[in-house]
């Protein structure tokens, strides 16, 4: 945790962190001195001449005031570090996110990453001041008191020092067991309620099948059977949670007993012994403070764990080479024995795929779901990197290219068109911020964005809202097509929307593919006949392998998988709901 924390600090603040640590130690020492000053002070109060306590009080006041001053300075630095953590930490995560491999972003990781950027801010600010400082104080103070006690009474000082590790271990164990208990309770609850949630989720199906009552009986019985076992599991955790309380109370009794015994044996005067009882209470106070910090420690460790998860996530490897300046026009793309899987232990999505896409051609990738079409597109786009094999553009290995060079190669129309919060115009210009009005106008017209803007009062200056939500799905799609067209990249990749309700955009996609103003090599993952018809070549993919490859006419004539696909698509387009008459095909 400390390591993560230090990593999050900007380099120029590391020295400050050292200063903060020094001040914290000094503050603790002053507090310990204050505690031990109680010995002569209290001893005087209980002795024959209470007035003798005044100088000691003066000393206590001086030490306490010095403590305030030191701690104020430490707090100032602590806050400063907190704000530095906030600024640097948040930015470094945001930067990091753009370099993490896309395959890392599972639902769970995405949630972690979102929380790491969005919600850890306030926790970071208070991290040093509310957590690091107090925890360090709570651990160091008893040690310091133990040391300060040595000159007064060696046995007591030693006992106090010996108690520190014992109590810390007890504290740590209790906290751990408490956490395990919480998790056990949570798991038990999840196990018990999962079936109820499932029962609720499937209500329509169960009722339609007249199975709701029997299913309820089954779930009920299963719950009853599971109940006892889980409860026992939870109960087993309880004794451990009492450990710390027991240990600190026992320490109190033991230390007080030692003091008393010393007094009884005459090694200590009675007033000194009483004073030492007070110091013992001070000593234990620190551990109690540690207990109160526990919820804060939990929050902070959660925050840091999230941040660390993002920082430790695998990043894409980055090349450094540039494409030769002579490379202009549409490139030839070659996939050489490309293999890919999403997780190390996951199934091979692509396995040894060889494919060459000639310069300036348009290729349609067709195939059933799960055949690897979108993966192939992502590999071409550089969003994923092959687990084996190479993707070559005009003979250059794309993995060796510098990020900017790699990015300049491709433009993509995504299925889920993400727009950022800005105007329609800004979003299209993201494709090429330096584009002139004529090129912009051309892209906008080709993608039929002009039809959209004509309907809007603010035209192309209309704000698209957060994540583009002010536009309909189809409108967003068109903006994203215009954006892709505007980008002067020699490779254009189109992932056609699967949602059948978006047919209005089919024409826009077709026009985009047909646009010849920029020389490009084009690849489209296609579902609709309209966009396939425009391809020079069709590659039919199944289980990550090319099973058919040829022109539309050629493959149709061959009567294989593609012809089958084509026929079904045609039939599906004219489908009508029928009833009594039966099927009309």
């Amino acid at each position, binding site marked *: 945790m400390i390591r993560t924390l230090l990593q999050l600090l900007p380099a120029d603040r590391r020295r400050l962190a050292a200063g903060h640590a020094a001040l914290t130690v000094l503050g603790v020492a002053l507090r310990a001195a204050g505690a031990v000053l109680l010995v002569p002070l209290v001893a005087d109060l209980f002795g024959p001449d*209470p007035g003798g*306590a005044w100088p000691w009080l003066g000393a206590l006041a001086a030490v306490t005031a010095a403590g305030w001053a030191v701690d104020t300075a430490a707090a*100032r630095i602590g806050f400063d570090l907190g*704000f530095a953590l*906030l*600024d640097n930490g948040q930015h470094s995560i*945001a930067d990091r996110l*753009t370099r993490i491999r896309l395959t890392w*972003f599972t639902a769970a990781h*995405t949630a972690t*990453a*979102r929380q790491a950027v969005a*919600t850890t*801010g306030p926790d970071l*600010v208070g991290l040093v001041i509310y957590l690091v400082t107090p925890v360090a104080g709570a651990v160091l103070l008893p040690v310091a008191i133990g040391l300060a006690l040595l000159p007064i009474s060696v046995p007591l000082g030693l006992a106090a020092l010996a108690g520190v590790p014992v109590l810390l271990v007890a504290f740590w164990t209790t906290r751990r067991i408490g956490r395990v208990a919480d998790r056990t309770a949570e798991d038990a*609850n999840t196990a018990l309620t999962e079936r*109820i*949630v499932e*029962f*609720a*989720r499937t*209500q*329509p*199906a169960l*009722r*339609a*099948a007249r*199975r709701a009552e029997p299913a309820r009986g089954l779930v*009920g019985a299963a719950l009853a059977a599971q109940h006892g076992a889980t409860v026992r599991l*939870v109960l087993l955790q309880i004794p451990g949670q009492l450990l710390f*309380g027991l240990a600190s109370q026992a320490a*109190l009794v033991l230390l*007080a007993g030692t003091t*008393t015994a010393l007094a*009884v044996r005459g090694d200590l005067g009675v007033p000194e012994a*009483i004073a030492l*009882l007070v110091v013992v209470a*001070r000593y234990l106070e620190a551990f109690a403070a540690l207990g109160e910090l526990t919820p804060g420690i939990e929050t902070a460790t959660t925050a840091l764990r999230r941040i660390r998860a993002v920082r430790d996530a695998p990043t894409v490897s980055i090349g450094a080479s540039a494409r030769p300046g002579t490379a202009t026009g549409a490139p030839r793309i070659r996939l050489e024995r490309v293999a890919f899987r999403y997780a190390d232990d996951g199934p091979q999505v692509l396995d040894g795929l060889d494919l060459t896409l000639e310069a300036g051609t348009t290729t349609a990738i067709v195939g*059933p*779901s799960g055949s690897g079409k979108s993966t192939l597109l*992502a590999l071409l786009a550089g*969003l994923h990197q092959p687990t084996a094999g190479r993707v070559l553009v005009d003979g250059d290995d794309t993995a060796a290219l510098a990020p*900017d060079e790699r*990015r300049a190669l491709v433009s*993509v129309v995504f299925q889920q068109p993400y727009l*950022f*919060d*800005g105007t329609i115009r800004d979003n299209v210009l*993201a494709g090429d*911020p330096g584009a002139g009005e004529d090129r912009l106008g051309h892209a906008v017209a080709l993608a039929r964005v002009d039809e959209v803007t004509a309907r809007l009062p603010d035209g192309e200056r209309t704000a698209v809202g957060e994540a583009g939500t002010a536009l309909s799905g189809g409108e967003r799609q068109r903006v994203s097509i215009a954006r892709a067209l505007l980008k002067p990249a020699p490779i254009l990749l189109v992932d056609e929307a*699967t949602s*059948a309700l978006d*047919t209005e955009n089919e024409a826009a996609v077709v026009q985009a593919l047909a646009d010849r103003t920029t020389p490009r090599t084009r690849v489209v993952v296609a579902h609709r006949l309209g966009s396939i018809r425009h391809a020079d070549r069709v590659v039919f993919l199944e289980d990550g392998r090319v099973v058919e490859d040829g022109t539309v006419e050629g493959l149709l004539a061959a009567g294989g998988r593609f012809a089958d696909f084509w026929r079904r*698509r045609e039939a599906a387009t004219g*489908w*009508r*709901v*029928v009833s009594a008459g*039966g*099927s009309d095909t």
Partner: protein
Amino acid sequence: MAKRGFSGVVIRSYGARDHEVTVVGKESLAPHFVRVRLTSATLFQDAVAVPTAWLRFWFPDPDGGESEHQRAYTISSADETTGEFTIDMVLHEPAGPASLWAKRVEPGWTIMATSLGSSKFDVPEEPPAGYLLIGDSASIPAVNSILAAVPVDVPVEVYLEQHDDADPLVPLTPHPRARIHWVPRQGPASLAAAIEARDWSDWYAWAGPESGSLKHLRTRLRDEFGFPKSELYAQAYWYYGRAFGKRRGTPEPEPAAAPEPAPAAAAPSGPAVRGAWRAQGAGRLLAPLKRTLILSGALQAVVTLVQLAPFVLLVELARRMLAGAAESTLWTLGGWALGLVGAGTLLGGALTLWLHAVDARFARDLRRRLLGKLARLPLGWFTARGSGHVKQVVRDDTLALHYLVTHAVPDAVAAVVAPVAVLAYLFAVDWRIALALFLPVLVYVMTMTVMVVQSGARTALALRWSERMNREAAGYLEGQPVIRVFGGAAGSTFRARLDEYIGFLDDWQRPFTGKKTLMDLATRPATFLLLIAFLGTWLVSSGAMDPVSLLPFLLLGTTFGARLLGIGYGLSGLRTGLLAARRIQTTLDESELQVRAGPAAAAAEAPGTVVFDRVDFGYRPGVPVIHGVSIVLRPGTLTALVGPSGSGKSTLAALLARFHDVDTGAVRVGGHDVRDLTADELYARVGFVFQQTQLVHGTVHDNIALALPDASRERVEAAARAAYLHERILRLPRGYDTVLGPDAALSGGERQRLTIARAILADPAVLVLDEATAFADPESEYAVQRALDRLTAGRTVLVIAHRLHTITGADQIVVLDGGRVAETGTHDELHAAGGRYRQLWDAGANRTTARAEATL
């Protein structure tokens, strides 16, 4: 500063900033009601324009004196980015500084305003049954902002006290479900008396009337109607016969309150009914545990006291040692101490065990009740809530209850008992030092208050920010592929937003670092120690105190501050648990589907006949979605429901599958009212295929044979073949015996076909179908369509149609508009008729009714 008097100083010490505000215009909204348009460059750095938000203005003395008068006015509209806003002001008689200013004001005038302690009104995610708004012309701006925020389908009752004949001319924000009542003021009791005596269960009340009226209102709303505290917001907006605000400058003369005209005895409008609120649900749910919880609380109190006892024993030990007691008495004390420690630990452990046992039993019963409830709720309840809500209630809320019972209650008791016991003990020993211990606490509380007040709107803003950052971060993550391909600009808005957020946190929190350090220093043990040591030395050396009395303070007094401040934290755990309990109770209170013991209807009609008989239906009372719809579906025919989204076609179809019950009229299947049939009887006749598919945990075979668990493999295979799924199933690792799960997953279209196979096997006479099902997945569109052909053949089919071209062959097309039947006929008839259907046909140009209601 001087001219603002004491309250000015207080406000200043809260750090509230004065903002200069310039008048840019004024218009009259009613004879005695003006809108003043204002602008300020800096105000909205502090203020947030949310419903009912208000500002404190410092109005000049009308007599030209030095002093300024503070009066509150509501922000009636605002543009936070430009800093322009308006306030609406009543010109009342007798006038005060504010109303006089309003009368005279001209563009160009300036005035100072602060945003401090403003309020805000939020509609919760699950709105109350209705809003009861009470006020008068002065609170109309606030009432208007509330009316604008309340969803259109929530009823609102507005009671406004009338002082002036022109009051009803003041414009009110229109709300379709608002009813306005003007109540002439006859005295402070007349407004309260005018509130209708009815059952206000689950309503929320907001009141901003005159102070005297408010007193009576509180009694009526709280004591007579039973409004719980959490569901009632009340604030006096002015005092009858007395200036309201503070003044700064000359000392404030206490004005003699003008005698109020003798109240005409206003008789309350009927006997009051006490309502019941969801907000009180937690209490009901936990009622069976009440005695247990009280007992456990008492036990925990004992445990806490026992845990403090060793410190008291230490004091006694010291006393004995000083008195030179025999060694043996000291060891007796030691024995006691050990015994107490052991007893405390044992007792604490036993208490925890016992609570866990109690909780386990309670949780088991609760889950059983929830299960029973879920089986009897109308299906519409599930579709309206989604799986997230169900999970929240069933999983998260039951877990929260576990913590409430086993941890939160004991923690809260311990947090309260410990400081109280310590305090009592210390006061008993020496009240002077005990009193002094409050000094650091006071410093803490005051600093805290200042911080809270200074934060003002920022606390609410921080919440908004965190919600917003969550959304933005989600978008940024989702947009990663786009950002990586397009780089730069695509990701820059997120970065800009992140910078803004960091800037906001920095601006807000950095100025507080000094105060936070002060709070920390004031309450740390070292500070208490010095305080105690100082007073002790003083009192002991002057002989005013026995030194032994100092010991309890040295032992227990140092952590007193921390303990006291821990109370708030200890109690916070209760809140989460109670909210969870409330949600669970709300679910348990939902009304269930009833099977009427109807007459064993002579089924005069063929089993496949469906009749909608003058059906009315609404999701909320008073907001009908379906109006008097009558349709007959003949056996074996296809009826299509078409209409723009929101026309009620999905709702109407859902009524046939009894996802909801009709309000009036009836839906009959084969002559039986669907409400007279048990669920099993109904679904033996009516099946449905919607876009959402639900697979139950089990094998493929089990899933298809859901309705006929004993069906033979042959029949299951036949159904799968008919649904074009047989081949695919054979390719699964274990064929029909494959347990569906993450390793053996089906695609969307395949799941769709499995649902269809299930319906084919169940073989209902009547089928409700969402046409969008056929296009849900382009990969297997063709197969799904063939499967549907098999399913629909020979049945009475009611289809929700999104694309008109798919239903041109229907026997009957019903065009819905605004929940009413607009037209009925075949495609050719309707197309020729040139009515609503023709419009839809032409508008769609045989395309799609794009953003169709895909779900119910």
